[in-house]
Every structure is written in structure tokens, then in C-alpha cells.
């Protein structure tokens, strides 16, 4: 598979870049992939920040046994996590324009102003992306755990929309900066998918949409999470089918069901790889195996990071220092 071959160097290219945006359909493991990439980068000695956006209850908390807040906290050497909520980002932005803290607070406490800022189209997105621009200057690498693909695509489109809307002024300037960040050669979009038909559909939809609407943003990698590579030989599969017909129930039936369960997962992975290869032949792809569900999110991310590192040609090993 040519996509997989090309992906060899891509993990290294990603973690030596400046910004990684991670998105995908809900429930595919975006946070785990973002956290894993963050771990790998930090292990290479890069000062890395992993960000969640406006999370009510940040998923990163469980992964790093810490509390992600607006101000980044260091959870491991070189690895920081934060929860970027747009209201704090707005406050910071306004404070930078108007250095008088008390006036800023008075303005932002105004009920009407709050209603207005809350409802103004694009405001949240631009303020959030502006803060991201600023953070990318503060860290070697920022990994963003983006919203699910539908909202993420809308967000990626915002800078251009805002620039169309306002041809000059501070918002135009913000849009310009955010767009420059998206178009930078060191910014990478990573899509995460699962080997399930509907997830693959949505992934391809997102891929095509982003390519059409934010054409200069690099879509650098697709991570096919929880993939099941074939383990049964053709003979074994044929035998499994024959036995299944002979034993529909009972203890034997259950053992055979387990086999068919894995065979189903393997077939799903094969067809997902096939479809992605056909419809997105230029998109580098890495598949990572299913990992045991027990052991908690922290261990899951550690194992996922190791799996991602294995697929890379450069010497990357989680925990290996500078």
C-alpha cells in the first residue's frame, strides 16, 4: 500500500512541525491521537502543548491525570495541556488591545456586551484561532484536539469568511493571521477514522470538503484507529464458515461467534483500507491496532503513541529523551 509507505516519514514530519490539528467523526479517538502525538513530540525534547477547545469536561484530564485549564500546565517533562475556552481568550485579546485591565473588565461584564459577543457570528472561532496563533509562538509544537469533523470544517473556514466579511480592521487582521497559520507548511491537519463504513464515509467527506474550502491547508495524515489486520488464513476462514453452519449455538457456537467477530473486524478494516486507498490515494495513512480496553486512558495513549512511533522510519521512541 503506497499510502502506508509514504506515511513512514510523516509522523516525524508532524511532530517536528509547529501545529497539528486533529479531527474526525465523534468517538473515533481524536483526543487519544492528539495526546499520543503530543507525547511523542515531548519525548523528542520538543516543548509541546496539547489543547482542547471549549471542553466542558476535558478528555485530556483522564489521559494525563491532571486538570486542563486555560493556563497550560506541565504534565510531563516538555508536555503541557490546556483547555482553550474562548471567553478567556477574548478577555486576553481585548486586554492586549486596551491595556487598562479595569476598563476591559467593565466592558466584558456588561450584560449586553456579553450577549452580543456570544451571538456574533464567527467571533468564537476567530478569537480561538487567534489565541492558537499566539500559542504557536510560545511552544515548539501545539497539538489541537479539534471539534468533530462537521464543526471543525466550519471552524477552518472561518478566517477566510471573516476576511471576506471585513475587508479591513482588527478582525480582518485576525483572520489574516489565522489563515496564515492554517496555510503554513509547518501546520498539519490529521484525520482520525475507524474501520467502519459510516466513519469512512464521513472521513472522505471531510477530506474532500477541507481540500475544496481550505485548499492550502496540508492534510498530512490519516490515522485509521482500532484497525484489525487479517490474522486468519483462507483455509481457516473457510473452516470457520463450515463450523459455524454446523454449530449455530451452544458453547461451540459462542467460540465460533468470537472468531466471526474478529473476522468481521478484519473484513471491515480491509474494506476501509481499500476504499480510502481508492478515494483518497494521495492521503498518507497509518493504521494502528485495537488496544485492550482495560488499563484506562493513560495506558491507552501510551500504547497508541508506541504504535504510531513504530510506523515511523525515524528513530522515535516514546520516553526516549533528547
Amino acid at each position, binding site marked *: 500500500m503506497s499510502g502506508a509507505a509514504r506515511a513512514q516519514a510523516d509522523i516525524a514530519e508532524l511532530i517536528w512541525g509547529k501545529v497539528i490539528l486533529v479531527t474526525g467523526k465523534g468517538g473515533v479517538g481524536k483526543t487519544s491521537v492528539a495526546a499520543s502525538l503530543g507525547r511523542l513530540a515531548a519525548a523528542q525534547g520538543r516543548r509541546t502543548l496539547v489543547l482542547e477547545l471549549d471542553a466542558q469536561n476535558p478528555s485530556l484530564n483522564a489521559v494525563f491525570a491532571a486538570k486542563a485549564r486555560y493556563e497550560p500546565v506541565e504534565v510531563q517533562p516538555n508536555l503541557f495541556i490546556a483547555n482553550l475556552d474562548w471567553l478567556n481568550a477574548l478577555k486576553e485579546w481585548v486586554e492586549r488591545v486596551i491595556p487598562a485591565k479595569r476598563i476591559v473588565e467593565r*466592558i466584558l461584564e456588561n450584560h449586553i456586551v456579553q*450577549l452580543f459577543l456570544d451571538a456574533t457570528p464567527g467571533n468564537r472561532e476567530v478569537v480561538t484561532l487567534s489565541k492558537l496563533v499566539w500559542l504557536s509562538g510560545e511552544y515548539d509544537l501545539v497539538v489541537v484536539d479539534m471539534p468533530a469533523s462537521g*464543526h471543525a470544517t466550519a471552524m477552518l473556514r472561518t478566517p477566510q469568511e471573516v476576511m471576506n466579511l471585513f475587508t479591513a480592521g482588527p478582525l480582518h487582521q485576525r483572520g489574516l493571521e489565522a489563515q496564515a497559520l492554517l496555510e503554513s507548511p509547518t501546520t498539519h491537519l490529521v484525520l482520525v477514522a475507524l474501520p467502519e463504513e459510516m466513519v469512512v464515509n464521513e472521513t472522505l467527506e471531510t477530506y474532500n470538503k477541507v481540500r475544496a474550502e481550505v485548499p492550502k491547508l496540508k492534510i498530512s495524515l490519516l490515522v485509521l484507529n482500532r484497525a484489525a489486520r487479517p490474522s486468519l488464513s483462507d483455509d481457516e476462514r473457510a473452516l470457520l464458515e463450515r463450523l459455524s453452519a454446523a454449530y449455530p449455538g451452544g458453547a461451540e457456537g459462542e467460540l465460533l461467534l*468470537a472468531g466471526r467477530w474478529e473476522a468481521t473486524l478484519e473484513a471491515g478494516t480491509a474494506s476501509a483500507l481499500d476504499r480510502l486507498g481508492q478515494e483518497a490515494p494521495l492521503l498518507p495513512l497509518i493504521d494502528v491496532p485495537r488496544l485492550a480496553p482495560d488499563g484506562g486512558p493513560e495506558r491507552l495513549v501510551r500504547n497508541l503513541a508506541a504504535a504510531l512511533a513504530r510506523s515511523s522510519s525515524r528513530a522515535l521512541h516514546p520516553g526516549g529523551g533528547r
Partner: protein
Amino acid sequence: MIQPREVLTRRKLVVCVGSGGVGKTTTAATMGLWAARQGRKVLVMTIDPARRLANSLGLKEFGNTETQIVVPGLPQGGQLWAMMLDTQTTFDELIQRMAPDQRTADRILTNRIYRTMSDTFAGSQEYMAAEKLYDVMTSGRYDLVVLDTPPVKNALDFFEAPGRLSRFFDRRVIKWFLQPYEEKRSFNPLAAGTSAVVFKLLSFIFGKEFLGDISEFLVLFKDMYDGFRERHEEVLRIFRSPDTSFVTIAAPTEPSMEVAGFFAEELRRRGYPRAGMIVNQVHQCAEEPLEPEILLGQAARLTGADLHERTAASLVARLGAAHGRLRQLAHSERVLIQDLHKINPAGAFFVELPWLEQQVYDLGALGVVADSLFADV
């Protein structure tokens, strides 16, 4: 305890909530199909940009218009309709309906702030979903509407975003903006009082052009805001109505359970009627390990001459390992499901659907799921 089938035969609106990737759309379609088979006229509404319901129903594409799905063998009166929300079209139709005259409607529809906000920005999708829901519910065209909600990272967005947009049309916001804009047309802080000072500072932060554009936009909307607010309040009333049921859909995974927990709490806080929970894709497996020797013996006999005994032995070894993994998965799912049980209110139903060997896409398969889902539990 209320049965899932009672919900579908008695209620007028069923709202499916839950995280993405748990089979929410498929479950919504299943419910719609089942209710249609009981002789009700049903609309399944999805506002999901990924157009997954179309897949579930074996359709290639359907737009903002309500489309009838051909289902063989429905009883008298039973009909299944489906609709996929198109945010822009819904917003445009709404403006046409609410504008005091055609000229205002045309000016709004071509206003660049309007074009951008109605199409692009987060929240407009949820708002328009509520708007379309109002439209459909008050039309009286259907006995039952099944609403599939958009996948939200933030469970709160579903409830808050419509209000956020409706607040944009708040009388006070509009009045506040129109004051300096209409009375003075210049931002003279001495003449216009405190609000003008704030306004001036805001224009310093965001640019005069921006605030000017917003003001102009709001001027266009000023005769319509009461209508917007009324409709929004009506939707909230529909959500609270005893004719409505909220059903939380989950899968036995940690992130999905967390979102389900959030929804449970939000629904309770808002006083929305919680009918129950459906957990999809539950793996089942006996707790006891099996004795592979039994199978090995059978396999050896079955293989006959055309297959090596080695194939049988290696297959059986693999099956044993697969069974171990399945058992482990089933066990960890069981723990999660027990936690979910605890947050389901008393009297609400709790249904588990087993993992299926075949993925559910077409009407036939949906029908099979419907039968197992809505048998009395």
C-alpha cells in the same frame, strides 16, 4: 415503567440525544420505521451534516424537503418520511416568512453578514434544527416526529446554541446598538451616554466597519425579533411537553457514556421528559472460558480430507484467543453499562442492543433491529 413501544405509539416527538458514533441516526431510523409499521405517519429528521440517515435508509441523497420512504407492507395510515436539514435553505425560508415585506426580505437575504452567519458559523445548525422542528411540529402533518440531533462535542451546545442565536435578536441588544447608530450616526461618547463609550471601545477592538455592519444588519431585523423569540420559546415549550420524549443513545464506550451522563443531567435540570436509554453495540459473551478440545474434535471430523488437521488446530487456537478478547471486552462493557444504569431515572426504560454481525444499512436490517428493540422489555 414506560416501554419503548409506548413512547413510539403515544408521543408526538421523540428526540434522540447522545455522542457521535453510537448509532444515533440508525436508532432514530429504526424507531421511525417501527412506528410507521404500527400505522403512524412518521417523519425522521436528521440535522447531521454527514448525511448518515440517507445511508441508513439506503438512500443516496435527500434534501431539506420531506421525502417519503417506500416501505413495503405498511398498514393503513402507516407512512415513513425522512428529512435532512439544510441550514441555509431553512434560514432563507424563515426570513421570507418573517420579514414584514419583500424588500426587507431581499435586503436581508443579500446582506453579507447574513450570508455568512446563516451558512457558516457554529450554532446556526442547532438553531435551524429547532426552527425546522417548530415548522414540522406545528404543521400537524405527522403523528410522530423522530429528531436525530447533531453530533456535539459539547453536549450543552445542543441546548444552548439556539438560545444564543435567538439572544442575538434580543430587544435590548438591538436597542443598544441602534441607539448610537440611529440617533447620532457618529460615535460621540458625550452625547450618547455610557453605552456609547462601550460601543466606541468595542469599535476600537473589532473595528468600526464591523460594528457598522452589525448595526445595519440589526436594523433590518428590528421588526422581526419578536417573531424569532416567540418561535424559540415555542420550541422550548414543545421540548418540555408531555407529548415529547427524550431518548439517550449510547454505546458501551467510556466517551459515549460520559456524554450520556451529561445529557442525563442537562435533561433533568431543564425538566425535559426523559423516556429512557438505548445502549447499542453491546458485546455478549459467557464469562466462562470454553474448552477448545471439544471444538477441536468436532473440527477434525468436519474438515474431512480437503483440509489439513493443522488448519483445524491453528483455527481453534485462534478462536480461543478471540474468545478471550471478546470476553474481556464484554466484561469491561458490562462495568460501564452498570454505571449508566445508575443515572437512568426511575420509571425510564433501559434497553441494550447486541452487537450485530452485519452492519445495519437497509430497511430490512432496520426492521430486524426494530423487532428486537421494541419487543416488551
